């Protein structure tokens, strides 16, 4: 009786030690497989079909027609180009400003908590709220930004209809929301840099600016790469900011002349305005390819830079 119980306990114990780890990681993989991995793969299958929003269960095989149509579609190249330009306009200043801000926050400060929380506050606002406020600040006739520009003698800028102005305005929403967040990432990395490196540089007569360039920036290089990757993914998906900036019907097409339509908006337009889900899937797949391309380029650049150094 006792031996029997003992054996059952060891068996249960073994089962627990062997099986529990899988049970613990299972929820993640089940949900991920069902709602992320499977859809991602299935997207490519759908992109080879003609599917309409109203009749989702009717799929008609069309081969690569959606892809050739996309390739010949000016809107696609326009959206791709816009995604790229808005991405650069928003990412580059954002990360440079974050770097400077992190450097300032890295000083010994009074009220450092206040400055950190203040820098992060925009991160708490939703795309919706932030885009609404900035749309108003960038209003052509009464917006605060045009009013300020008028004080220094600049004529009213049509932020909505001028292509580059609109892209700048949209980028500024992204910059505002994410600069503080990136600054905190940089700050954390900066604080992990050993202080002797600064001392050594100081002994060698490096000025503070030189120390920043030669000690701080290399010291947080992997964080910088990480933020570039994250911002690139974010930029590829840009959606809410241009949509809301367009205020209604013009939002989905990215302005009256598609002047700020991004790939995300094009995906939405094809699927949920033109009801062509197959085509929307094709845009999604194109976005995926763009991302892969960006990563490959980034790897190559990184390797080339490493070889030079």
């Amino acid at each position, binding site marked *: 009786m006792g031996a029997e119980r003992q054996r059952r306990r060891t068996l249960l114990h073994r089962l627990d030690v062997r099986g529990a780890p899988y049970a613990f990681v299972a929820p993640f993989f089940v949900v991920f497989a069902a709602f992320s991995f499977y859809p991602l793969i299935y997207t490519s299958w759908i992109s080879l079909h003609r599917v309409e929003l109203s009749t989702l269960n009717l799929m008609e095989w069309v081969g690569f027609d959606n892809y050739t149509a996309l390739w010949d579609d000016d809107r696609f190249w326009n959206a791709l180009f816009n995604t790229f330009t808005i991405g650069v306009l928003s990412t580059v200043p954002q990360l440079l400003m974050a770097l400077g801000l992190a450097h300032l926050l890295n000083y010994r400060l009074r009220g450092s908590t206040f400055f950190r929380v203040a820098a992060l506050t925009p991160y708490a606002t939703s795309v919706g709220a932030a885009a609404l406020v900035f749309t108003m600040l960038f209003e052509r006739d009464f917006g605060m930004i045009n009013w300020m520009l008028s004080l220094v003698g600049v004529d009213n800028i049509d932020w909505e209809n001028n292509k580059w102005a609109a892209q700048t305005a949209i980028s500024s929403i992204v910059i505002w929301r994410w600069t503080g967040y990136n600054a905190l990432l940089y700050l954390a990395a900066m604080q992990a840099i050993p202080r002797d490196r600064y001392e050594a540089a100081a002994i060698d007569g490096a000025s503070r600016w030189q120390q920043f360039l030669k000690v701080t920036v290399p010291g947080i290089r992997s964080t910088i790469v990480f933020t570039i990757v994250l911002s690139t993914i974010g930029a590829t*998906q840009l959606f809410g900011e241009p949509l809301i900036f367009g205020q209604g019907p013009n939002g989905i097409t990215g302005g009256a002349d598609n002047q700020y339509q991004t790939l995300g908006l094009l995906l939405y337009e094809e699927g949920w305005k033109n009801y062509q889900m197959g085509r929307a899937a094709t845009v999604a797949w194109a976005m995926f390819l763009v991302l892969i391309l960006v990563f490959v380029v980034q790897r190559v650049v990184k390797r080339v830079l490493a070889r030079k150094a």
Partner: protein
Amino acid sequence: MTTDSIPVQTADARPGTARKARKATPSGGRRRQLFRHPGAGRQHHAGPVAYILLGIAALFSLFPLYWTMVAASTDNTRVTQTPPPFLPGPHLLENLGKAWQDAALGKAMLNSLIVAGVIALSTVLFATLAGFAFAKLRFKGRNILLMLVIGTMMVPPQLGVVPLFMMITELGWGQKLPAVIFPTLVSAVGVFFMRQYLSEALPDELVEAGRVDGAHSLRIFWSIVLPIARPPMAVLFMITFVHAWNDFFWPFIVLDMTNPTVPVALTQLSAGYVRDQSLIMAGALLGTLPLLALFVVFGRQIVGGIMQGAVKG
């Protein structure tokens, strides 16, 4: 950046450990005194220029929010005059009330609270479970599975949105909250975040001691892991909550105005036929207030959490 992501450290160096290590090194105090250069790194006190620049940065961060409040407290004619108003007017409560009704914000807030709350809870629970397994339990395929987790962090959710929409329609979840909740129940970044924390903060001996005492895995998780993991769980909860509350793309696709979350409801305000700017700003303010409150109360912790999770050079 719209991906649900908090950064995670890649190296096993949390700020705490780095700081401790630095303190422990016996680098002679006198030598440091002698060679202290005015520019010697982060020990340096901020000068007036740094304060001025930081003040400007803080102004840029906070001004749009302040001005939202100003615009929300005036009326439409005043807000569209030049120069624009800089001080609050008398109509704040009135506008808030009207925006609340026009954008159905009551329902939207409740929806957002449910969505963000459930997502944050489940993300934290499953991330802690999986993070514990990856950090402290041995099993076949552990490394491959962990690589998979890391790999998935790079896949933006937007790419699978078309089939996801088809699935949701098939399941009959269109315009319903489960459509928003289920796809985001777990987060790879969360799993990795908890793993990194637990590999360091949870001593192996403690887990083994639990085993010797005859506790089964779930029991160990409940009585040993959970108490230790409480601080990073709180951080993960807040960050996930903020992300889920602000998520826009997918909710905008699957929900409509009859049953929106806050960000979806806010689009209604700007797309309206009659555009009352003060009302729009009142709505924007209302939609942001809950998270601003969260920041006022837990700002320091959220900041600390983001910094703790950051990649170390």
